């Protein structure tokens, strides 16, 4: 069975401001999709809508054919959609291992820590933070906390992963681990939506880009095409974003994976 995430005409208003103006897209199987757009484009709101934290005013979200937009976030997580947060949200006063036990036990895959200890240790070793297993979450550095969040997602083992700014403030050596993590998940046939301002990573990793601007989906396609799209260039340049810094212009045509 292929993994599918379909969003159909998602609209959301906050007060008088239309944050999402009827978004539709479909993501399938082992796809790695980049979701980009200037600040305030609606990326985080879209994530919250997909995750169930915010109910859309209208529109339908389906995961593997099951309608998930009316569900609570925990039900969405159990249905197979996992996310990270823009600001790291490690459980600060729980040990690293306990952080990983939470999804395992919430999903009912383990009745006690003993059942999921081996899996948790395997994941911590993969993420190279196994030596910190008994430390509190708050004792970890910002980058290590990001890794811990990714580790929790591996335990959750959803079908679709949404990563909100996984590279922000991460040390280059840990960056390699995140790349490795993405390859592992993608290799399992899972879909990943990657939200990032670091264009280099986006262009290296993603096979498809969704570009949001003021709640509209202004482009959807392979990165090499998207970055020459006049609407996209306008969206970025029109808001004084430094294109050379983001790598939008300087990247070579054939750079995507």
């Amino acid at each position, binding site marked *: 069975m292929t993994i599918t995430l379909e969003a159909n005409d998602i609209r959301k208003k906050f007060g008088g401001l239309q944050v999402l103006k009827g978004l539709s897209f479909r993501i399938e199987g082992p796809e790695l999709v980049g979701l980009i757009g200037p600040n305030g484009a609606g990326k985080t709101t879209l994530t919250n809508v997909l995750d169930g934290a915010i109910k859309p005013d209208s529109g339908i979200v389906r995961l593997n054919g099951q309608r998930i937009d009316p569900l609570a*976030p*925990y039900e969405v*997580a159990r249905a197979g959609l996992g996310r990270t947060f823009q600001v790291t949200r490690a459980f600060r*006063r*729980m040990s690293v291992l306990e952080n990983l036990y939470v*999804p395992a*036990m919430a999903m009912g895959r383990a009745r*006690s820590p003993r059942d999921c200890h081996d899996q948790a240790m395997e994941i911590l070793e993969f993420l190279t933070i*196994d030596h910190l297993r008994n430390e509190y979450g708050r004792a970890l550095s910002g980058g290590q906390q990001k890794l811990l969040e990714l580790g*929790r997602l591996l335990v959750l083992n959803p079908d679709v992963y949404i990563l909100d700014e996984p590279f922000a403030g991460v040390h280059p050596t840990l960056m390699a681990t995140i790349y490795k993590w993405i390859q592992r998940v993608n290799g399992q046939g899972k879909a990943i939506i990657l939200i990032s301002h670091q264009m280099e990573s986006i262009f290296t990793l993603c096979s498809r880009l969704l570009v949001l601007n003021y709640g509209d989906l202004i482009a959807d396609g392979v990165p090499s095409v998207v970055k020459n799209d006049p609407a996209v260039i306008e969206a970025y340049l029109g808001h004084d974003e430094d294109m050379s810094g983001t790598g939008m212009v300087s990247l070579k045509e054939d750079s995507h994976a």
Partner: protein
Amino acid sequence: MIRSLPNALGALGVAFLLGFPLLYAGGNYDYVMHLWITAFFYAILASSWALLAGYGGQFSFGHMAFMALGAYSAGLLDNYVVLSSHATGTCTEIGLFGSWLVLVDPTGVSTSAVNCLQQARGVWPEGVTTSRLPLLLSILIGAGVGGGFGWLIGTLVLRLRAAYLALFTVGFSEILRAAISAEVWLTRGQAGLPMSPIFPEGVTIFGTFYASNAKLPVYYVMLGLFLLTLVILISLARSRIGLFLRALREDEDAAEALGVDTVKYKRTVFVVTAMIAATAGVVQGHYVGIITPNTLILLQMALVIAMAVIGGLENVVAAAVGAIIISFGLEFLRNDFIIFGERVDMSTWRLVFFGLLLMLTLRFLRNGVIHGGLLWLERRAVGAETVAKRRATPKSGTEEAK
């Protein structure tokens, strides 16, 4: 060795408590027993509040209200519901397997009014017996009422953040106090609702008869309830529910995104702790013999909070031990003394002292005194083990990562 110290101390403590009333030979037997019973009562409240606030992160100020709900439910049953072997003919009554469940009409604080049961007694033949509902049943009902309100409050405050939750529960507690004080016809208001002893006819344990006012049976009832509470709380804290509670305390959104049904677990912890508080209220009410709305003043809640905080909010056993120590401490600080010719009213000044102690503990010993001490021991143990390991293996550090 240091690591097992707390467990050894705990086992010793339980053994001591179980044997104490049989072995104690000092003076003032009843008074000392009374102190222990009160200490257990506060320990039950403080440890269950520690689970709610320390584990669940739900800083509710309504814990004494749940206690009072339990006590008043039992008190109302005790006063207005009677099992009789003969129909009264004057009261509302339901026939039950040859006896009657009689609902007595409340007469408030008026001394002249005669209720329907008293009327019936005047015309009854000899040999009619009446009794209250069995204690266990009234405990169940009290716990049920407490749990029901716990569910209601838990549901109402689900979406509220910390400050709102605290405000709302303070308000709930004040309303309950206002209602109990105002509905004199039912609750007898400030005069208080009298309650029968735990064992109204006395009780025989291993061939020894104890009268209804004897302390020893009550001691074991309260101790049993206390130990049962600890077992329930510890197993909850160590179970997946404890893990989820801590996760949602740390970050509700993240816990939810990882598949934790936060609404369900928040409600669960509200209901369970409310039921525990209500049960403690039923037993304490029967023991003291009267229940008044003054058990609901914020001072009482403040005492429970101070006990839990000073003991250690994030460890139910530490909170219970803190409650026992403070409960005794408050009693020993009760004696007035005279300084510079002025009589110092210690019944007030000891509370000033505890307010200050609460603030200072919060400010400087964030884990509480007892839980903080345990953590310190644990760190020492871990430190010692690491040193020992380092000595055992010539190669350092790098090996351990594997």
